């Protein structure tokens, strides 16, 4: 996803000289080409996250369209007050690009994991929250983020995620994207769990269970209407995210269900409000938190 992101940003920068990239001393083997092509629109602010966000705001209020790149915890939480005030309160045209959704940085440890970011960012007024799940979503949402004149948070995985959508799929910011049709169950995923969700849906299909898979790549503004329509299918709904069970996709869907006045079977799957003290790979971390394998659901035949 990060390669797709930076290639898309280079394309945008060629077309618009206002596009500016700040890195907080991250981006080895990713950002070099941008730096070479646009040396006067690239700035490494050093390992100083608070200052980086303030500098980005100053550039944005001077007419730049600023993308700030780092690992998720450092571009969201280390500098949270600057995000809140300098970007959101001032409605500055700055895009935060975070790498390493959930436990992507598995063996690095919990300092480099991000399980709180969606909850935090979606609670900030003026902030748009984008959680692409594959390169198709990443490319199209990056382009659409450029059109938004207010702050945006883009939550990326790392590299090598497969394409889930076809090349022709049109991804529209603010609207859920349906991946598969299905009549037994609805599975809504966000961010880097799209791949996992698709795998589960394929496994269920072999068992004769048809699942409607929805990619909720935009967490804010949230596609309330799509969730309302899903409720009306009157089949169970499951949400799947690599994020704390509190405050993320599952919470957002639950809010819609609760206010719909309708009853529907509903289950949130995510990180169970715990930090990882497990040592191991991304997939190993998922296994330990119980989000690697599809849940054992008894379907009435």
């Amino acid at each position, binding site marked *: 996803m990060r390669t797709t992101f930076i290639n898309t940003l280079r394309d945008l920068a060629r077309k618009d000289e206002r596009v500016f990239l700040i890195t907080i001393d991250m981006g080895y083997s990713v950002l070099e080409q941008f730096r070479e092509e646009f040396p*006067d*629109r690239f*700035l490494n*602010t*050093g390992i*100083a996250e*608070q*200052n*980086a*966000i*303030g*500098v*980005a*705001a*100053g*550039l*944005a*209020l*001077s*007419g*730049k369209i600023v993308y700030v790149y780092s690992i998720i915890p450092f571009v969201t939480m280390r500098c949270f*007050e*600057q995000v809140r*005030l*300098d970007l959101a*309160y*001032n409605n500055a045209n700055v895009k935060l690009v975070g790498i390493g959704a959930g436990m992507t940085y598995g063996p690095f440890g919990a300092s480099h994991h991000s399980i709180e970011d969606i909850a935090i960012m979606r609670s900030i007024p003026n902030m748009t929250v984008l959680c692409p799940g594959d390169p198709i979503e990443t490319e199209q949402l990056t382009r659409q983020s450029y059109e938004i004149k207010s702050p945006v948070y883009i939550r990326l995985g790392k590299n090598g995620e497969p394409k889930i959508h076809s090349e022709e799929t049109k991804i529209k910011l603010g609207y859920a994207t349906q991946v598969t049709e299905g009549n037994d169950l609805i599975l809504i995923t966000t961010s880097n769990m799209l791949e996992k969700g698709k795998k589960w849906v394929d496994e269920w299909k072999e068992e004769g269970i048809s699942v409607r898979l929805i990619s909720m790549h935009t967490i804010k503004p949230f596609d309330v209407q799509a969730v309302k329509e899903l409720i009306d299918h009157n089949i169970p709904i499951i949400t799947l995210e690599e994020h704390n069970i509190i405050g993320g996709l599952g919470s957002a869907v639950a809010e819609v269900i609760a206010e719909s006045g309708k009853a529907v079977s509903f289950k949130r799957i995510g990180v169970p409000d715990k930090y990882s003290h497990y040592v191991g790979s991304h997939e190993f971390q998922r296994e330990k938190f119980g989000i690697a394998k599809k849940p054992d659901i008894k379907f009435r035949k």
Partner: protein
Amino acid sequence: MQTDENEKLKALANTIRKHVLNMVMHAQSSHIGASYSIVEILVTLYTNILKIDPKNPTDPYRDKFLLSKAHGSTALYAILAEVGFFPLEYLNRYYVDDSILPGHLDRESVPGIEFSMGSLGHGLSVGVGMAIANRQTKNPGRIFVLLSDGECNEGSVWEAIMLASHLKLANLTVIVDYNKIQSFGRTNEVINQEPVLDRWRAFGWDVWEVDGHNFDGLLDALRAPHTGPKVIIAHTVKGKGVSFMEDTLDWHYKSPNKEQYEQAMHELENLD
């Protein structure tokens, strides 16, 4: 400076202090001491330094001023109104229900507010970003940032100080309001900042030291050419201008009662 010009600036400073007193009295708000320490700095900037046009407040080539110590907002509102960014009557609509001017800065409130601020340690980073943008686009507009001394406790300030000198931002000037009192004590007793000049110098800045209530000194320092970022350490007195408010922690918080208001106004009128 000509004596009559100096007298004009003194008179304007006194007018600003009376506006601030009226605002703080009407609203029963705090921070009058922090506003009074920066009055001469603001008067110097807005009458002699900043290239700005109150009739065209968003001119892309303007100089920009950021009051990072946004709790001194009443002094900024008063000078902005005096130089014509908005009507003087707005000063009566400060802080209270359904008014216009908030306790800290909101750039959507009135023209002339460059950035919404209130939490300390934000303004210099934003100023650095603005200075980078202007240099990159060959925009002649300069950036001025006013910090409080206590604000320099914030780590983010030093992050910005480092980047500004690394980038040799010659279009950036910082003024530190060194009134030596912060929220809960004497600045150098809370966290020592001395030797403050050497600290900025060691970080690669051009350093000036002035009496922050003396127009000649402020003008010389603000007009001095510089090849990198410049800082002016302005020695000031918290609550300057009203005898019982000067150099006290109390008047960071208190708002005047009727007797105190009358005495303060009496002292200010005697300065006219």
